[in-house]
């Protein structure tokens, strides 16, 4: 057994199971030896020793002296007027300290409403009416978790039910107005377009083939295994508000808290400790957070609020809920010429999506995907319904999943229309020249789509599978093969276009090297499992030759880390990772001056070699980064500032465009309608790879989160707006049994503009997997006349299709 101190051994320099036929586009470059462990090494994660021993520090683990607990009374109606709230019995209960209602927040300076990230407004606590089921109605603060939970049963709220509006198409008719607080009495929130309408209409009028499909990308919930929560600790003497929060974006949240509460920003400290999964669900500010902070302000004591799972599923931000009508045009040769899309975005009771401010439909216009076409036009309308607000990522870069699902589905439908193999239609229409300007205005940075398709087809044995399928079909067995060749857009983003509430979407790194050659590096992002403590250290190891084991990475404390916009939308490597490389390069520039001084040569006489500056032509004359670090504090050149540190705020010149091809094989049980994913090959290209082991882990996890909406997950509402998916018994996350053994691989096409040539990986599989699975199921049933199936593809749906087609067990 290895001893606890024996932590940074055993790094395999090359990925296990690397393809025997390794050509240029596959090989992970490794420039540093294992003891330095720069990019490309499968370094064991530095964060893991605490997690595997139960020593993580999550928000619910925080315990402060005299801490109180908060619980929340929630609405049993989707739409109702509040007639009265009687909290007298609760307040008379021993241990109950306070009840916070909408009126209290209003009196505290209008805190009963708060801004959303999309510049809409959202109730913190209601005064006159509720607009979704499980909406926060009032909060109870007590000395004990159980007493608080008891007390919510002793608060009596009288409601006058109003008619709910659950269907967004109904909502567009404005018969029931959700937001009566607005000047405009309509549920229609915004209309957004991208592309060229006229050119697109022209392409469609000239097309030899047009296919059309409506589809619904249902409401999902991120369901990180840790729910949301907070410990707010206001010190009345120092007027300092310390907040532990399940936050993917602690700096942005500090600014929002300052702006909303009026507390000065330097008196607010947000600590995002270990986070038990985010996936976008910990980007928004929820009413519970505000109530918890107010509860601490009011009582002057630390207050803890931790959601239970039902609250999390019923009231926190949802993802997706796009109702799409898509048309694709092609010429007589089967070349795709155009895409025309209309989409209704069900926003719930507020536009509280987590998108960059100028992008109400996120980056949805990436929906022309991997295919070169002449024209495209995309329209999206946002609408209020009496459902919880949201529009978060679910492990996706701002609506890219919806875009990819749509284009990959209609591409298959076009292949069926043309009678072509879906792989060949894709190959024929791939974008081949980069940078590529898309008809909706994107500039794709780099790609090699055919290489990924080829590798996926070869790995899975595509031709052989088609033969097997034909044989099985002849025997009456149901087997399908589905492909998805997706293009993502991640790493928001360049300051000219990307901001959240006006704050530009740069990100940051600060590196300090200590005299003994060890370092601390702090970043503006916040890992929720992505492994930043390891991968950021590897970036610095790559750039400066400091062993990654000697670099302590910290994030999440706004008092110490540089300002940044946080971790979501696969932006950490493209932005903060780049900032880390740039800060390291600033340090290297100073290190060169120090080395020249120590070696008594000119800077031009020096060259860099892994971890040292050496004199060109006489490498024995060298100063390692450790020598230089010591000199920076003990023997620095006259006239130079002491120390060795740098900060960088990185503003990316463009987004990055990861891509890949996924191929899925399914078998369908004719008796039960159950879909079994037999094989799934995922070939991803995220540019240069920092840690292949971490990349594999991200891909595996993303694939299971892609399997989930394809086959299992959906937040369902009844006609009254009641959430029917409020527990994990109803909202089905895949277990290890449903999740297949993923087969992964990669190609490497570096981003030309990223300092490390990296692109981001965490979300590609969630984006790319669902259409591969759906395409496989439709393929299995295509000979029965099935052209499309809405997700999630439950056994019930398949069973009905089979029975309608006359197929019996």
């Amino acid at each position, binding site marked *: *057994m*290895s001893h606890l101190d024996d932590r940074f051994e055993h790094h395999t320099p090359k990925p296990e199971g690397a393809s025997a036929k390794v050509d240029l586009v596959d090989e992970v470059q490794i420039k540093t030896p294992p003891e330095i462990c720069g990019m490309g090494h499968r370094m064991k994660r530095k964060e893991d020793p605490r997690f595997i021993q*139960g020593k993580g520090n999550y928000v619910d683990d925080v315990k402060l002296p005299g801490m109180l607990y908060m619980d929340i009374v929630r609405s049993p109606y989707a739409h109702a007027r509040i007639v009265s709230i009687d909290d007298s019995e609760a307040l008379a209960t021993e241990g109950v300290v306070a009840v916070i209602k909408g009126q209290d927040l209003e009196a505290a300076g209008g805190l009963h409403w708060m801004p959303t990230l999309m510049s809409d407004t959202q109730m913190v606590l209601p005064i006159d009416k509720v607009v979704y089921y499980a909406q926060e109605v009032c909060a109870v603060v007590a000395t004990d978790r159980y007493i608080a939970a008891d007390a919510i049963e002793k608060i009596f709220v009288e409601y006058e039910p109003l008619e709910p509006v659950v269907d967004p198409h109904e909502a567009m008719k404005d018969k029931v107005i959700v937001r009566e607080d607005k000047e405009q009495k309509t549920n229609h929130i915004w209309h957004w377009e991208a592309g060229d309408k006229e050119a697109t209409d022209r392409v469609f009028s000239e097309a030899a083939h047009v296919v059309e499909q409506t589809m619904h990308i249902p409401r999902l919930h991120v369901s990180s*295994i840790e729910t949301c929560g907070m410990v707010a600790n206001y010190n009345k003497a120092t007027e300092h508000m310390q907040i532990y929060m399940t936050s993917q974006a602690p700096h942005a949240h500090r600014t929002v808290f300052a702006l909303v509460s009026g507390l000065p920003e330097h008196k607010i400290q947000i600590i995002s400790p270990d986070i038990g999964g985010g996936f976008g669900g910990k980007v928004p500010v929820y009413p519970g957070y505000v109530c918890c902070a107010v509860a601490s302000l009011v009582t002057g004591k630390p207050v803890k609020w931790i959601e239970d799972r039902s609250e999390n599923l019923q009231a926190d931000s949802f993802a997706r809920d796009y109702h799409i009508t898509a048309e694709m045009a092609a010429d007589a040769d089967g070349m795709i010429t155009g895409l025309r899309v209309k989409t209704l975005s069900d926003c719930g009771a507020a536009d509280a999506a987590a998108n960059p401010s100028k992008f109400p439909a996120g980056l949805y216009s990436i929906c022309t995907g991997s295919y070169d076409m002449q024209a495209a036009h995309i329209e999206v309308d946002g609408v209020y319904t009496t459902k919880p607000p949201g529009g978060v990522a679910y492990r996706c870069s701002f609506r890219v999943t919806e875009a990819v699902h749509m284009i990959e589905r209609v591409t298959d439908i076009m292949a069926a229309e043309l009678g072509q193999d879906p792989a060949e239609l894709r190959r024929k229409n791939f974008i081949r020249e980069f940078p590529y300007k898309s008809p909706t205005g994107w500039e794709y940075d780099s790609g090699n789509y055919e290489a990924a398709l080829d590798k996926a087809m070869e790995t899975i044995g595509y031709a052989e599978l088609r033969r097997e399928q034909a044989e099985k079909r002849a025997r009456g067995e149901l087997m399908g093969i589905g492909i998805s060749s997706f293009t993502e857009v991640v790493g928001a983003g360049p300051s000219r276009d990307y901001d959240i509430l006006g704050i530009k979407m740069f990100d940051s790194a600060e590196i300090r090297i200590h005299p003994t050659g060890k370092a601390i590096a702090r970043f503006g992002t916040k890992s929720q*499992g992505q492994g930043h403590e390891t991968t950021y250290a590897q970036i610095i190891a790559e750039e400066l030759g400091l062993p990654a084991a000697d670099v302590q990475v910290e994030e999440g404390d706004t008092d110490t880390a540089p300002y940044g916009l946080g971790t979501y939308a696969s932006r950490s490597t493209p932005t903060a990772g780049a900032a880390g490389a740039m800060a390291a390069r600033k340090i290297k520039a100073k290190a060169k001056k120090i080395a020249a001084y120590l070696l008594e040569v000119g800077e031009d006489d020096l060259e860099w070699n892994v971890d040292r500056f050496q004199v060109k032509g006489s490498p024995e004359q060298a100063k390692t980064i450790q020598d230089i670090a010591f000199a920076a504090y003990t023997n620095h050149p006259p006239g130079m500032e002491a120390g060795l540190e740098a900060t960088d705020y990185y503003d990316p010149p463009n987004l990055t465009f990861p891509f890949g091809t996924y191929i899925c094989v399914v078998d369908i049980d004719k008796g039960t309608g159950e879909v079994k994913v037999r094989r799934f090959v995922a070939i991803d290209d995220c540019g240069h790879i920092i840690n292949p082991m971490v990349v594999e*882990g991200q891909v*595996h996890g993303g694939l299971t989160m892609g399997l989930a909406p394809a086959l299992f997950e959906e937040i369902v509402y009844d006609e009254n707006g009641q959430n029917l998916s409020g527990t*994990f018994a109803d909202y089905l996350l895949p277990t290890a049994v449903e999740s297949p053994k*993923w087969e992964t691989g990669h190609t490497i096409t570096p981003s030309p503009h990223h300092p490390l040539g990296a692109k981001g990986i965490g979300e590609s599989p969630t984006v790319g997997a669902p259409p591969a699975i759906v395409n496989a199921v439709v393929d299995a049933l295509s000979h029965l006349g099935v052209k499309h199936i809405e997700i999630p593809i439950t056994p019930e749906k398949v069973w009905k299709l089979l029975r309608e087609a006359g197929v019996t067990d």
Partner: protein
Amino acid sequence: MSKHTITLTVNGNEFTREVESRTLLVHFVREDLDLTGTHIGCDTTSCGACTLLVNGRAIKSCTMFAVQANGAAVETIEGVAQNGDLHPLQEGFWEKHGLQCGYCTPGMIMSAKQLLEQNPNPTEEEIRWGISGNLCRCTGYNKIVEAIQYAAAKAREGQTEAGGEEASS
């Protein structure tokens, strides 16, 4: 609310505490004993983040009362490493990247520990069924399976070498 005095051993240490009859075992372990490695994920026995061992059996402690553990031997994630040595499962999860956010990991390790104690040489399918009561949202399970396979191999190796350094405490 009536109170009861309970005595139990947790990770080999005996504790006597007064608890309310309704106190959940997971809250008792986390809040009364400050063993916060056992997590809460769903409150409904679905996710397994709160899994610990009671008399050697994997139990979801969010739906067991503390009073029901009176007299029992409880083992939590904090008791799995022995004398500074990681358990093969802990080693396997670290070596094979069997965790990302770490939130499900303690429960996952405790379920795997029961599995390997009952079946030291499980097939991949048996491993997948063995942890099917534990949800992970990050890893896609491939590497958790590999971590458990690593631990099983390592434990077998250890038994032949050292004559059985038993994992159970």
